[in-house]
């Protein structure tokens, strides 16, 4: 068996000034995750490592640099799935967490549930000693700029994301 890891950033349109760094980010993430596969790491270790690296890269809509909701806050979703046993864990509308994918893995590993949401996910994170970060620390100037632009009544956030603004 030849180990393999494949990663993606978001589908849509990436503004010219962000193209190079977006491409560099996925390459760095795949290198980081692949190093796990080359060691003793499992496929699960590799995908969580790669996605963690992408969450920490502010050029992507996940973790640091996430887009903002209508209130100007960050709410994130994440999922992991292990193909051995169809085990899965997910979090939704989670706040104040730098790496939701790691929290999703904890949901899979430490609970009998598939998905925890909102404040429940936050309580679970605290009970696991998972680090909480200020919500503001996940917001970038770029995310704030896009949020402001799309507050207009006639704005179409889906169109902006997929076709115009990236």
């Amino acid at each position, binding site marked *: *068996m*030849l*180990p*393999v*890891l*494949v*990663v*993606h*950033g*978001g*589908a*849509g349109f990436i503004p010219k000034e962000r193209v190079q760094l*977006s*491409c560099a980010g996925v*390459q760095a*993430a795949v*290198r980081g*995750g*692949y190093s796990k596969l080359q060691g003793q*790491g*499992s496929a*699960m270790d*590799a*995908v*969580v490592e*790669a*996605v963690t690296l992408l969450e920490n890269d502010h050029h*992507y*809509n*996940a*973790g640091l640099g*996430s*887009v*903002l*909701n*209508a209130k100007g806050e960050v*709410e994130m*979703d*994440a*999922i*992991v*799935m292990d*193909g*051995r046993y*169809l085990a899965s864990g*997910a979090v*939704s509308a989670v706040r104040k967490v730098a790496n939701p994918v790691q929290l*999703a893995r904890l949901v899979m590993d430490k609970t009998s549930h598939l*998905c925890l*949401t909102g404040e429940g996910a936050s309580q679970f994170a605290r009970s696991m000693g998972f680090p909480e970060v200020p919500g503001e620390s996940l917001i970038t100037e770029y*995310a704030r700029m896009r*949020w402001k632009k799309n507050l207009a009544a006639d*704005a179409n*956030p*889906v169109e*902006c*994301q*997929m*076709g115009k*603004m990236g």
Partner: protein
Amino acid sequence: TVGAVAVDAEGNIACATSTGGMLNKMEGRVGDTACIGCGGYADNRVGAVSPTGEGEAIMKVTLARLILFHMEQGRSAEAAADEALAYMKERVGGLGGVVVVDPQGEWSVRFSSLQMAWAAAQQQTLHYGLYTGEHFTQNI
């Protein structure tokens, strides 16, 4: 949205996906990412998928599981992804992209959007691209 799929040396398969969601979304809106079969699926017997794109459209067609369904019917990862993405576009007008692996370590990157940054690593080779049809390689 970001995501990954992998097959390890023992043939085990996994996927992970993470997102901040949709720009200026309603508070409490949850998209495809947190939903099993939509924002990701992994089964050692079939393969794994991590998608990105318009979350509501992905949920309506359960994109990740749909691709694996096509693979169960004998399609390659690439053909299955193309078929499912075309179905999503035709049926609900949604655009997106996916990364896919199968248990043999065959992999595919497909998208119906303008761009999707992607990268893959296998046999000490790094593969990457951004636009449709782009596929560069370099040694790791």
